[in-house]
């Protein structure tokens, strides 16, 4: 069940009339209110967590402990709790002192209560953001591998890849990362960056398959003003942007051959020329490449330059697919569960035993990315405190495969690995309905919503292409 807690207010004022009025006002609006006449008691209860406080409203002028002293004491153990001060002293100096002491807001008496309500709502929003931010920071700092935050895995395959990444991080050798889509190639590249001497420099990533060839060239190398139509100013490329850092070229196997030649030259000479410029510029970025393709085969097919392959393939790192490192599925799932529970403000505590069995049993053809998406979906859709088997994917759906289910029993009519034409699809559909109706033409025509003549014509077409035999 999603945890939709009521917000908790602590109100401190030695004016009993106002204390009662404000308590009544906020309770009527669904707030949990704890009221105090003495700030010391409130402080003690907040510190010992006897009361929950999302926002504090306190009078400034209080006997024994003033509102300002209260703030100073609170800040010794809670740096973020929003405190709204109320005062009948309307001087600017008092307001400045209150804010400098750590008050979130400052409201004047006589109180305009709706204005105070707005201030409370804004303070609550701030508190929520701060709490979420802290929780996310804690989440990322909890998970550690080689001192890297958010890098999760304990399988031998994962450890091998990451330890190799660590070993080569301080070298200058070219690195290429092999792995299926979604397996975490960019995580390895970032690990090389973070563990090496370039960690204080930028990490710039680009997916070579996502950008058209002509645009990719200008993205990588930059251009001079007037280099082509629309180049109204000069632009630095990613090689320069990643200066003293790392440039990660993902899906290098999809790079067009002309650009492969240019990349090879850059890697050999460590110099670039912006498009439309004669001046050469030194580059200091370390280039890390990655691909899901078998580059050796691509070389054999003539799709990838052999010289570039050898230039890149100095230190290959293989990130195994998730199905080959099953030990990582649960730690990753728990990490994503925490992450998405925080993001969606959902109070989900874990997985049921059956859900864990399902998670471990699936093949995760889309790898960590598919797992992450599945957990996000489960967190959003789950109605209980534990993600159950029904919240998870029922079976593996291979990437690139489309299953079209048309029968009542849910049996697939056909599976296609590529999109078929509308005409073929139409023929297949007619054939399917015709067979399902026991070759009864009238019933088939009715179900298809066409007249009998049209059906005869369509069936003849099917016969003529030998796609089926009409009984």
């Amino acid at each position: 069940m999603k945890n939709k807690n009521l917000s908790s207010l602590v109100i401190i004022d030695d004016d009993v009339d106002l204390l009662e009025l404000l308590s009544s006002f906020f309770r009527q609006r669904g707030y949990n209110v704890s009221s105090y006449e003495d700030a010391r008691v409130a402080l003690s209860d907040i510190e010992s967590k006897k009361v929950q406080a999302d926002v504090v409203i306190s009078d400034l002028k209080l006997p024994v402990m003033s509102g300002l002293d209260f703030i100073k004491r609170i800040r010794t153990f809670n740096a973020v709790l929003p405190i709204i001060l109320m005062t009948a002293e309307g001087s600017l100096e008092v307001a400045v002192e209150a804010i400098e002491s750590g008050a979130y807001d400052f409201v004047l008496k006589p109180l305009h209560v709706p204005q105070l309500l707005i201030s409370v709502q804004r303070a609550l929003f701030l508190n929520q953001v701060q709490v979420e931010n802290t929780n996310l920071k804690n989440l990322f700092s909890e998970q550690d591998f080689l001192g890297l935050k958010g890098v999760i895995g304990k399988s031998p395959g994962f450890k091998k890849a990451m330890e190799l990444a660590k070993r080569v991080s301080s070298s200058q050798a070219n690195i290429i990362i092999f792995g299926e889509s979604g397996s975490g190639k960019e995580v390895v590249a970032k690990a090389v960056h973070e563990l090496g001497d370039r960690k204080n420099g930028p990490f710039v990533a680009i997916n070579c398959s996502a950008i058209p060839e002509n645009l990719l060239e200008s993205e990588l190398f930059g251009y001079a003003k007037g280099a082509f139509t629309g180049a109204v100013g000069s632009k630095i490329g990613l090689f320069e942007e990643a200066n003293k850092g790392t440039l990660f070229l993902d899906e290098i196997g999809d790079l067009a051959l002309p650009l492969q030649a240019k990349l090879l030259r850059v890697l050999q000479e460590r110099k670039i020329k912006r498009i439309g410029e004669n001046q050469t510029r030194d580059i200091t970025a370390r280039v890390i490449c990655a691909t899901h393709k078998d580059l050796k085969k691509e070389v054999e097919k003539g799709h990838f330059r052999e010289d570039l392959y050898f230039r890149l393939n100095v230190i290959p790192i293989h990130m195994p697919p998730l199905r080959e490192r099953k030990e990582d599925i649960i730690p990753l799932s728990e990490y994503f569960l925490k992450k998405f529970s925080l993001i969606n403000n959902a109070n989900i505590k874990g997985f049921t035993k059956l859900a864990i069995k399902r998670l471990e049993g699936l093949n995760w053809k889309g790898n960590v990315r598919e797992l992450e998406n599945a957990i996000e979906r489960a967190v959003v859709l789950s109605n209980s405190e534990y993600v159950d088997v029904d919240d998870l994917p029922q079976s593996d759906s291979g990437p690139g495969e489309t299953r079209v289910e048309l029968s009542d029993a849910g049996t697939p009519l056909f599976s296609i690995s590529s999109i078929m034409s509308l005409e073929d699809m139409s023929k297949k559909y007619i054939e399917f309905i015709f067979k399902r109706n026991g070759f009864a033409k009238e019933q088939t025509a009715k179900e298809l919503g066409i007249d009998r003549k049209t059906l005869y014509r369509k069936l003849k077409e099917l016969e003529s292409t030998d796609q089926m035999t009409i009984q």
Partner: protein
Amino acid sequence: MNMHIHNEHKIKYLNRRMSEIEELKQCLESDDFDVAINIGHRLKGNGETFGFPAISAIGILMEKAAHLKDREKLRETIADLTAHVEQNLKSF
């Protein structure tokens, strides 16, 4: 526009002022101005919130008179407060 205050809150507020008035009168006899400063300060802060802006105004004058230890002025503000509270209580 401020919030609507229910009559029961207003009556409770005015009755509390009646008992404060007794306290103020005793303080005036014993020259205990600190109590008058605190009460005046509170009235300044809460009168208008409960729908009685005149009580906030009296509170300002009371706090000032008490600070100055001005017995006559303080007596006047107590009398004004008494009249105002009694008049409002009658209206409910």
